[in-house]
């Protein structure tokens, strides 16, 4: 048997429990949302893309892949970041090039041209690519990433971009 007083008391306790839960939820959200937002939102900003001179056209022999390294100036948090990037340039004729992003599309290691085997090889997980960028062995899920290029005043200019690694489609990462 419950007296009216008991019922009232229980109602009051239930009410207070709800209020405590609501206040707790409010405090968690008021502190948690900005905290988690600061942790995640800055990471979703898109990357800026720009055209970069990678070298004089005359420096790339026809038919012979050549690596070109250059500095990409950007921001890394509060630091000015000078990223050393590299591309592999295959010159087909006077004015025809293929430019590959220098990262292996598997997990981003730097690969290199193997003169003896006439193939690009990645030292990390054994990815291998033909001269045209097609996969001929190992784990890479897609061909090497080609980059847009143009010739300007005798220089080869490249729109350097990194793409998502380890996926079959070439997506801007």
């Amino acid at each position, binding site marked *: 048997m419950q007296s009216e007083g008991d019922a009232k008391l229980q109602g009051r306790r239930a009410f207070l429990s709800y209020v405590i839960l609501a206040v707790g939820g409010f405090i968690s959200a008021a502190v948690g949302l900005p905290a988690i937002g600061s942790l995640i939102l800055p990471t979703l900003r898109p990357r800026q893309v720009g055209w970069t001179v990678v070298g004089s056209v005359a420096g790339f022999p026809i038919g012979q892949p050549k690596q070109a390294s250059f500095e990409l100036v950007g921001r890394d948090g*509060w*630091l000015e970041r000078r990223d050393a990037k590299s591309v592999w340039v295959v010159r087909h004729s006077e004015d025809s090039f293929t430019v590959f992003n220098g990262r292996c599309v598997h997990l981003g290691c730097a690969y290199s041209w193997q003169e003896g085997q006439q193939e690009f090889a990645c030292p990390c997980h054994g990815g291998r690519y033909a001269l045209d960028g097609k996969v001929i062995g190992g784990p890479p899920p897609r061909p090497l990433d080609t980059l847009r290029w143009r010739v300007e005043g005798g220089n080869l200019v490249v729109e350097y971009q990194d793409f998502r690694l*380890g996926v*079959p489609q070439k997506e801007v990462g």
Partner: protein
Amino acid sequence: MASSRGLKARERLGQIQSWLGQRSGGGLVWQALFARKVPLGVNWFYTLGAASLFLFTLQAVTGIFLAVYYAPTPDHAYDSIQYIMYEVPFGAVIRGIHHWGASAMVVVVVLHMAVAFAYGAYKYPRELTWVVGVGLLVLTLAFGFTGYLLPWDEKAYWATVVGTAIPGTLPVAGDVVMRVMRGGIQLGALTLTRFFAFHTMLLPAALAGLIGVHLFLVILHGVSVPAGLWEKGQAKAQGLFGSRHAEAPPYAQGEAYKARYDELKAKGHRFWPDVIFEDAVVAALILVAIFGLVITVGVPTEARADPTNTAYVPRPEWYFMFLFQALKYFPGSLEWVGAGVLPPLALFLLLLLPLYDRSPWRSPSRRPIAMAGGVFAVIVIAYLTIAAYLT
């Protein structure tokens, strides 16, 4: 004269002790944590839990001293580590202990778990203790992963490039997961501060909290009795699947369990000083082994991180080698299965072990299927690790 003065001093000391005890509640804590008994059969394998706690403390203490000199930013991290190694008195020793202590912690935590598995200690009433323990294992590995980047050397940089690219291959959420881990698209300043904050603040707080829960449960239920002793005199199971049909020991659960446990506990040793003595000996031996490694091997030196180094072949720390090797068996398009599905699935199976392994038996000989599964997992991990080092 002298003896009466000594007596007086002792009396005074007793008064101080009693005053402190009353005001602080220290007596209650002492009774609950130290003046308890452990059941019959507790042996040296039981020191592995305390050894894990010792190593966590060792890592926390050496980590604090490293943080005094370390600068978590790409333009200073490597130099600050060099400064610790070559200019700070005892800096190389402290970093050496932290470096080898990390490996030792993984070894000891895994051994601790292996013993709990072999003894069937995850069964009634310690299911939650096991679940929390798996959480502690995950946090220990997360410490290893986040700590690895901090020296900002070649190995650190490239292993983290690959380590964060792996979740990036997951369908749908992969890209976001990778960005959140790196603090952006590329590995850089924001990755380093992020990993530093997690390694030195979030993970220690989480680990300390979970250790608290784990220890509370250990004290609440008491440590398990070794499986063989617990089931002594019970009929042996017949055949491979015998344990499923054999009658469970009458004290597998409930009141009967408690009565048998209390009986064995009454015959057991005291936690203080008997068990603590063994814990202390093991902790000292581990520390001697770590010092031995610091002196003979030291901390491997690596060049400063160079994001364009085409010749560098990144390899993870030895305890992630089996995952590194396993990835080689998956074609690129299925990489996310090997990296993002199988390891979490295995961890999930480990986590829920007490929920699906409901056999009331604990002795390894009465749990042939569970033991075969455990041994199989050890063989696979050992094989992959050895294969990774041979290739």
